[in-house]
């Protein structure tokens, strides 16, 4: 589709013609035309190299998540432990990428600080445009990382949703069994009262006592289990909420970075603007002083004419 729109061939043609008309010799022509075909390998700064490396890591992370996505989400393919280990790996990976981005960010501000040292004149490699460009690269990288993190957060949220859903029916089951358990002690108590009057064999009484103890223990344990499971559920919910919150916090961090970049770009204009303003103020005040002096030095006999003149001066 882009064939007809590509005018590079036309341009080369024109270059050849113009070079001929300017009287370039053969070797010069050849070198010019060859520079079109073979581009000099670009010498990249360390910053760009590091940025590309970070980009590569983020891409790898994305691929990793893609690969393990099915395993992670589907309930029956993996155990809880495997899911935890996937989560753990991804978290480490994210942290590593974030560190790389931080290093890049600090290198920009480090360079900025260094270059300001000498009489406030910036060096060749760190003018306002380049710094803004580097900030832009860092911002793009962190946005990329954030989108990958958000994807993973969604998967995590689904996992927790499933976990919560599983807890609810179990809780209901526990409720039913616990209501049954409360009835048993009553019946045990009623049974216990009875053997007081007759005189059965001591063995049976002992056995009954043992049974009672067992049942009491059972009740106690099941209620403990209840409590523990309830706490676990609450913990699961809390961490689910936490993860949601962390996504939003990360988003905020992004916005802050954006403001920072805008501020950097704006400083070049604001500096100039401030300079102009201060010059204008200076000019204004100096001219006013001059005029005041001029007027005051006039002898007072000038009287009303001067007073008439004054408004016109301003």
């Amino acid at each position, binding site marked *: *589709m*882009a*064939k*007809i*729109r*590509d*005018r*590079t061939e*036309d*341009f080369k043609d*024109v*270059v050849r*013609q*113009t*070079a001929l008309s*300017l009287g*370039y010799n053969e070797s010069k022509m050849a070198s*010019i035309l060859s*520079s*079109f075909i073979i*581009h*000099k390998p*670009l010498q*990249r*700064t360390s*910053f*760009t190299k590091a*940025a*590309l490396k970070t*980009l*590569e890591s983020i*891409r790898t992370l994305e691929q990793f998540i893609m690969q393990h996505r099915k395993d992670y989400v589907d309930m029956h393919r993996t155990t809880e432990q495997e899911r935890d280990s996937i989560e753990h790996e991804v978290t480490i990976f994210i942290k590593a990428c974030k560190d790389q981005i931080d290093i890049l960010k600090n290198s920009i501000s480090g360079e900025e600080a260094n270059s300001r040292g000498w009489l406030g004149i910036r060096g*060749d*490699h760190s*003018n*306002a*445009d*380049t710094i*803004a*460009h580097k*900030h*832009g*690269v860092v*911002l*793009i990288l962190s*946005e990329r990382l954030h989108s990958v993190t958000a994807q993973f957060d969604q998967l995590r*949220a689904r996992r927790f949703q499933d976990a*919560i859903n599983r*807890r*609810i029916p179990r*809780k209901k089951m526990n409720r039913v069994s616990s209501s049954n358990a409360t009835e048993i002690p009553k019946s045990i108590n009623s049974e216990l009262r009875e053997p007081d009057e007759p005189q059965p064999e001591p063995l049976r009484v002992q056995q009954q006592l043992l049974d009672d103890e067992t049942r009491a223990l059972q009740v106690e344990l099941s209620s403990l289990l209840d409590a523990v499971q*309830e706490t676990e*559920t*609450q913990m699961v*919910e809390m961490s*689910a*909420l936490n993860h*949601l*919150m962390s996504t939003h916090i990360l988003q905020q961090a992004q916005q802050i970075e954006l403001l920072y970049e805008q501020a950097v770009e704006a400083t070049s204009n604001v500096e100039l603007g401030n300079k102009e303003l201060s010059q204008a103020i200076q000019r204004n005040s100096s001219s006013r002083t001059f005029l005041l002096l001029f007027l005051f030095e006039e002898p007072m006999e000038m009287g009303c004419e001067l007073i008439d003149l004054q408004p016109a001066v301003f």
Partner: protein
Amino acid sequence: MALNLRQKQTECITRMLNLNQPVNSTGTANEEVYKILIYDKYCQNMLSPLIHVKDLRKHGVTLYFLIDKDRKPVHDVPAVYFVQPNQSNIQRIVNDASHSLYDSFHLNFSSSIPRPLLEDLASGMLNSDSINRISKVHDQYLEFVTLEENLFSLAQKSSYVQLNDPSAGDREIEEIIEKIVSGLFCVLATLAVVPIIRCPRGGPAEMVASALDQRMRDHLLSKNNLFSEGGNFASSFQRPILCIFDRTFELSVGIQHDFRYRPLVHDVLGLKLNRLSVPGEKGGMRSYELDSFDPFWVANGSLEFPEVAIEIETQLNKYKKDVDEVNRRTGGNAEEFDGQDLIGNTKHLMNAVNSLPELTERKQVIDKHTNIATVLLGEIKERSLDSYAKKEYDMMVRGGIDRNELLSVLKGKGTKMDKLRFAIMFLISTESIPQSEIKSLNVSLASANSASRSNIVDWAEKLYGQSISAVTAGVKNLLSNDRQLALTRTVDALMEGRPNPEIDSYVLYDPRAPKSSSGASHLKGPFKEAIVFMIGGGNYVEYGSLQELALRQQPVKHVIYGTTEILTGAEFVEQLSLLGQKMGLGSSSAPPTH
């Protein structure tokens, strides 16, 4: 195949930002990921309704500058230039290259760069020995501004004045026609369609149509052209129709007051490139964006103003109800607080947190439109725009109003411009204008402090004194009672393709057909899609009316509306007054040139 101009333009721009390599979403590590974008003023206006700064970053653009700004070197990055092909831009590019500002230059021109400029570029580069920096040169054919999916503008100023200027020579007229044709060609190239062209006889419309036809024929001669990728649509069913009109066809639309939301916002508050600045509630100026991502704007743009106010109210109540519901479900209901409900509450809390962004967005939209509507209401009340709109509508339908009513309006509320527009509408709507009326009109206009503009009335009368009076009568006849514009009726007739005395005289051009063939009847058949172009200036009233027409049809048709520039009523009347001055009607002593 619905033509979506905005989407196609965005695709072209995305491809350009990707250094004109095919957009590959999975993407292997592309070495040239980060780039700098440089544009000129025209291209900036073109990009701003289409792409936000955030989206630029998605394509790896770290910085974006105007070409005229003082720029510093940035190493290691390719620079993407997107500019109009003219002398000053070429000079600037040569300058940048000679100072080695960037590592490689990818040049993209918004329309086809002519050979002489290419030669200038080449010689400049050779002289400064920086030819190795240029990587690619592309023609993008994107020299138009798309405001909405079906609305575009060529952003060419004052074309009405230039075309009707009595002192303009053949050369100047040709240049203007050439510019318009170039813009239209870019639109068609982006859509990749070869339409059937129809236009009324005589006037700029026919000139543009024949020049465009010629240009497309020449272009289609080469095998690998811009239109071959669209596939070959032989039958007229698939090809759209391009209808070209001139502003003089229907002057009233450009001048009259309208009371619907979108035209009001444009006319009264000055909507430009989908951006609007209004005084906010707390005193400062607030800037808003009104485009197809604003659901309220899309849904209610064509409603009359009172209905819009009611709609805002409804949305606000709905929002409040939703917020209350969220609060109720997650709020502290202490009596129900036991373990069982904790899970339910947490679920609701999670849902609430997820729905917060959506609720905030809805509130922002409602606030935005409340602010706009409040400011609008203030203006309407001050200038009593509703009565202007109603009276003008009545005038056009009935053909004139009572003289006393006219004078009372001129003495009443409204700015000078409002009264002037009303006066011109009166002239257009009445068929015969006795001389005494003109005099009294002049007097009342003068007394309303618009002495300098009273000459407009003279001009208008003279204009209609020419053969165009026939057009006026024709225009009036075309208006039916249900407020349909003449343009809309004509486009409807052209799209239907049935024999119709109004349009039978229209000229037909088909760039694909060989020159000798007669206008085959099948080419006039019903069209599903149309592109309507207005030379000299258009506005949102016409756009809205055409969209209504398209949606009314069974099955739904598709109409794209474009113009040389989008003008408010005031701006158009300014152009008319300029034209009046050029015609020598400014002073009473100078005799009229026609």
